[in-house]
């Protein structure tokens, strides 16, 4: 009995030790960048992890500097991501509602088309989309990004959303139909409220996109005042890697904070979304 107790104790101690080490590994990069953003000076190198003096200069610089228009980039990104989230989520809902609830000619084809299209690497279409936007005189506008992000949403989200909608019993629709509800009413009164968890997931993934896309956004947005934060941040790193690290750190914190908080709040749904996306065909 006591041998077993000892065994348990060793096991518990070992587990806690491992967990602590893993936790440190998880937290350290985040902690390091947060602390770096408060550190005076500009360099990547610092003697100690915790700075001797804390300063808010780098945050101030982000919003006052002539070359880093962070405030404006932030607003640009917010605008683009809110609008593309709204439009994109509506498009995903429309597509998935249609393919989940209705049987029509070409449904199977539509589904497999979406599946196959999602397998092409995104960069392949970039040049063509670029020329298309040029023809439409939309280069260097935010509208271009909103359109492209929203139009791409159904490719990523339809299967996940459809899988979820399939789990809402059809008898609900049928009962409503007998009571004389139109398709639009069924959609807005029954499907929409019931699919809220998955809707949140789709909307969140859609929302994060513009904050982290530094490739397509850079291709489209040619002038600095029009940039998004991701383009600005990548530019900071690629153009002058070590010279202004602390300002980069401050910018990184300001971008990661809102998105990180959103993710923490919604983690349950994120897992559900991932599982649904992979296992529902």
């Amino acid at each position, binding site marked *: 009995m006591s041998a077993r107790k000892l065994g*348990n104790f060793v096991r518990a101690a070992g*587990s*806690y030790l*491992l967990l602590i080490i893993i936790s440190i590994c*998880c*937290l350290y*990069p*985040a902690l*390091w*960048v947060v602390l770096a953003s408060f550190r005076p000076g500009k360099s*990547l*190198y*610092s003697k100690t992890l915790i700075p001797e003096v804390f300063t808010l200069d780098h945050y101030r610089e982000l919003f006052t500097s002539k070359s880093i228009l962070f405030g404006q980039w932030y607003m640009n990104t917010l605008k683009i991501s809110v609008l593309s989230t709204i439009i994109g989520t509506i*498009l995903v809902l*429309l597509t998935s509602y*249609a*393919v989940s609830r*209705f049987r*029509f000619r070409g449904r199977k084809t539509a589904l497999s088309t979406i599946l*196959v*299209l999602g*397998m*092409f*690497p995104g*960069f*392949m*279409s*970039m*040049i*063509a*989309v670029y*020329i*298309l936007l040029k*023809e439409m005189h939309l280069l260097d506008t935010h509208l271009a990004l909103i*359109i492209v992000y929203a*139009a791409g949403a159904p*490719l990523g989200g339809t299967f996940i959303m459809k899988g979820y909608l399939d789990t809402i019993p059809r008898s609900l629709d049928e009962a409503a139909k007998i009571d004389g509800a*139109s*398709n639009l009413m069924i959609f807005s009164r029954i499907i929409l409220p019931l699919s809220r968890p998955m809707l949140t997931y789709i909307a969140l993934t859609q929302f994060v996109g513009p904050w*982290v896309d*530094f490739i397509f956004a850079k291709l489209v947005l040619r002038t600095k005042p029009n940039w998004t934060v991701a383009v600005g*941040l990548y530019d900071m790193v690629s153009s002058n*890697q*070590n010279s202004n690290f602390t300002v*980069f750190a401050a910018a*990184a914190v300001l*971008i*990661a904070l809102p*998105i*990180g908080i959103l*993710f*923490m709040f919604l*983690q349950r749904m994120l*897992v559900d979304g991932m*599982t649904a*996306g*992979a*296992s*529902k*065909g």
Partner: protein
Amino acid sequence: MAGDSSIFRRGEGLEMKHRTVAAWLSAIFAGLGQLYNRQFIKGILFIAVEILALFYFINNLGTAIWGTVTLGESGSHFEKVNGIARLVPGDHSINLLIQGLITIILFIIFVIYYVMNIKDAYQIGKQRELGVAANNFKGTLQYILEQKFAVAFLTIPGIGILFFTIMPIIFMILLSFTNYSAPDHLPPAKLVDWVGFDTFKNLLTLKSWSHTFWGVLVWTIIWAVLSTVTTYFGGMFVALLIQQKVVKLKGLWRTILIIPYAIPQLISLLVMRNMFNGQFGPINQYLAYFGLGGLPWLTDPFWAKVTVIVVNMWVGIPVSMLLIMGVLTTISKDLYEAADIDGATNYQKFRIITLPMILFSTAPILITQFAGNINNFNAIFLLTNGNPVVGDYQYAGATDLLVTWLYKLTLDQNRYNMASAVGIIIFLIIASFSIYNYRRTRSFKEEDMIQ
């Protein structure tokens, strides 16, 4: 007698007539059949669409076909105007190709519209023969909303996908059959030509290209396997660690370990790139503190590969952990109790109950993750940029995956035809995995083995 029969025949003729007349009228000019069927608003709308379409296609269709077939006939060249040589802009092959493509897609849509217009006139004509009055405009709208709801709903997303995904993909597939590439075939200065399968041939057989291609492909596969396996089993390990009975404060640990997942990859990978910086980064600083020499984390081909795998574990383990924790809660306690009664050890319980259950429920996700890792652009590009450069590779580095190579070929080197060929090959690889996966999940669902 004769009169009777002729009246009878005329009546029959009239009945026949509605559908044929309407269909023929619509075939002559969209909307006429609808007007004949007394659907005036619909008819006028259809006519308007046809007029617009005629204007557009008369002006463009010829050019579009000429443009796609020839890709332009004259490059920019000097021409003598009043004795002074002047640069005359030539045909821009790529713009011609893309405009041609758009026009052809629009034309296909128009043809579909035209056929539907004839069918519609025929159907309504048939209805009228049966004595059913044709819908008025409001009725038509209602009919669409109730009976053709799905198709109507799909139109808007469909158009978006058509122009922003399908058209670009067709365009890029076409590009791989041209010689659109730096330095000799870049419009507007030079023309681009169709070259058939030459690009693929060069990619696979021309020494300089094939060496790069096979090298990058092999590393892509090694990377995909290693990164998937490390994150998956790493995540499983952490999940099992937290789920033990002896561990208290499960929620707290879980929250801490999820943090890497909550930070956008753009940020965390750029931060990591700085942390692993060979000269000033904190990692080497700590190694020096413990009296160890710093490692060339991002600049040596071997260590760069190690670094991307390790950093990817940091990024990927939390996701696997969350997934597997979800599975663990669904495994019934009875199984473990039964195993206890049989005197199973912890290891036996893990091997016989836990592991198969986890593998079974997460297998599709595992394959999805594997396919995702083949295309894991962020992890490589943000961390190493594909570097360190390998001397005898064509524009690729030691850690470049096919996708990042594709990116470099397109945006840095303007080797569009090669990039498209690489893209098609990536697609073939991913597609075969996904289709396998899709089939498998379907068969699993039907079998319903475990639940």
